[in-house]
């Protein structure tokens, strides 16, 4: 236990700060996100992530949003376990035909008002997989999309920027 506390203390807070001399734009982005979230969602937003056919690359970067450097929860953005708890669906991948109904049902299970963010090149336009017998291509071919975050995969910073785009709508 002492070792654990020691490591925690010695690690300190690595979360990237405002006015960091490295001019990291992360914090600024986060603050802007918070301002927009405040307006529409009283300070918090719940996101349900849905992999509709991704290669798992986007998931790795979405995971990274919760690491101590980005710590997205400090801006009131929570990734939640059920669409019933969600304000926003964050959808990755081209929508595989085998996931089409599951995505539609997840969308229906999300209470109104709701927003959809399509994250990654595949979700944006079908990416490397496009439309085929097995893939519906872009997320917008299946459910209405409010914001698109390009990138293969989008970096955690790009993901934050994309959420900002959602708030400005």
């Amino acid at each position: 236990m002492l070792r654990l506390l020691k490591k925690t203390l010695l690690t300190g807070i690595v979360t990237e700060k405002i006015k960091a001399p490295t001019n990291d734009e992360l914090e600024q982005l986060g603050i802007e996100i918070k301002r927009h979230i405040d307006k529409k969602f009283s300070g918090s937003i719940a996101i349900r992530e849905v992999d509709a056919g991704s290669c798992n690359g986007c998931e790795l970067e979405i995971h990274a949003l919760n690491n101590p450097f980005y710590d997205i929860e400090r801006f009131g953005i929570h990734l939640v376990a059920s669409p019933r708890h969600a304000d926003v669906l964050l959808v990755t991948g081209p929508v595989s035909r085998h996931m089409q109904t599951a995505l539609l049902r997840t969308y229906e299970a999300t209470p109104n008002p709701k927003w959809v963010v399509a994250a990654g090149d595949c979700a944006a336009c079908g990416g490397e997989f496009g439309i085929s017998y097995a893939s519906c291509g872009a997320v917008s071919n299946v459910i209405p999309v409010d914001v698109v975050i390009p990138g293969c995969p989008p970096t955690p910073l790009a993901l934050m920027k994309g959420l900002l785009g959602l708030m400005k709508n």
Partner: protein
Amino acid sequence: MNSTTANWQTAFFNQLVLKGCVVERISIASAMLWQIESRDWQLFAEQGLEEQLRWVAGWAEHNQSQFLVNACFEKQGLYLWLRTIITAEKPELPSQATVYPAASRSERHTRDMFGIEFIGHPDDRRWTRHKAWSENSYPLRKDFPVQGTPDHITPPDMDYPFVKSHGTGVYEIPVGPVHAGIIEPGHFRFQAVGELILNLEERLGYVHKGIEKIAEGRVPVSLARLAGRISGDTTVGHAWAACMAMEQAAGISIPPRAAFLRGILAERERVANHLGDMGAICNDVAFIFAQMQFTRIRELWLRTNAQLFGHRLLMDRIIPGGVACDLTDTGCALIRQDIVRLRNELADILMAVDLNSTLEDRLYTAGYLAPELAAAYGAVGYVGRASGQRFDVRKDAPYAPYDQISFKVAVEAQGDIASRFWVRNKEINSALKLIEKFIDLLPPGDIMTAWREPLAGSESLAAVEGWRGEIVSYVRFEADNKIARFYSRDPSIINWPALEKLVLDNIVPDFPVCNKSLNGSYSGNDL
């Protein structure tokens, strides 16, 4: 791949002939292909099992009026590539799944995609096919259009005949395809009594994206991009396997510097994923300290990737003929510094992890995969190596740059989640040493060999050790530098069935950590 015919292959060949099996040996690219009559397909498997061959992969190919059915086996680092040819009028042959359980899903996949019947298969249910195409159409036949004829909305696969159980107190838990975490989609059907898991059945195929079909007609650069997206966490591994197969088929060899850079990229990918997994295993038993520490050091590692190679996950760094990025002396120095820092961090964190009794409680003895079972399923990578299966392509069938250095492969026989955790740690240590050696030995020179268009019909089979384990890629070219057939066997295809076994007699709440300790790729499995 090693093309020398070792003693066991000669003896095995003679034994097959003795059993009345008609075998023809054909040398293709760098591998040796054994072609047999379709009636002997199962006989070969029976003999192979007796010879203790490991079943590696199975795939087919449609060629006008016939189907080429392939299987790959391995023993002592030597691969044996088996083929039979059957007519399109009567596409059937005896099943190998009756002998090798590992072949079961592969044969179901081939049946769904080609309409080839494997006679005597112990499980005649569909596998890859849900409802996106009809029962009597087969996407990988050449006359099936890539666009298919899908419904406007593909219905869910509601009537899949799951195994049923009856009896007092037995109940079912359906999970997925949409899971509660940020993970890939798949369905798990549990039968449980109280909290105890009686049976688990996996139903995958939800992220089937038609990769094999859309690979056809691509040029090498484009196939490498696609292969790099078979499983996003294994982008280096799959791109390397696909490029190696294409390079062998085209008869080109990559510059030594490119081989070493590929080695550095592959080991960096291994470290990044193991760090993520070790954190996630701890997270699944609610030990958040470790999750935060591991994700922190993983992030630092990925930032170095972005700084030196231009991509956090190293996508599209491996291209046909070599690599897309070089490493400067300052870059090498930075990597060295990084490794020193990572070792120090890991020493701190692992000390705290090792001494934690709650982790010990949850990870030791849970999710036990017996070595015999791991051998029967041919488990690969850290799943196999935590259950006594020593095989590692880098060591046993070495390719450049692994053929030029010595290193240790970590093996444990304990077979539980803790073992799969600590094997990952050992693999990180070995990967860090490998990266240092690669930097020491990094030869000067080009990082690319000019591409040479292969002859129509050229084919090859390649194997590399991805971070999850052995990846096997098959490529055949047609005219104009285009791909006629591509198949890639992700290690997950082999390891997924082991999960169904290792969760038995565990409690349902331990399923997430059992699953994470194996961490199969859904996308790599579904293709």
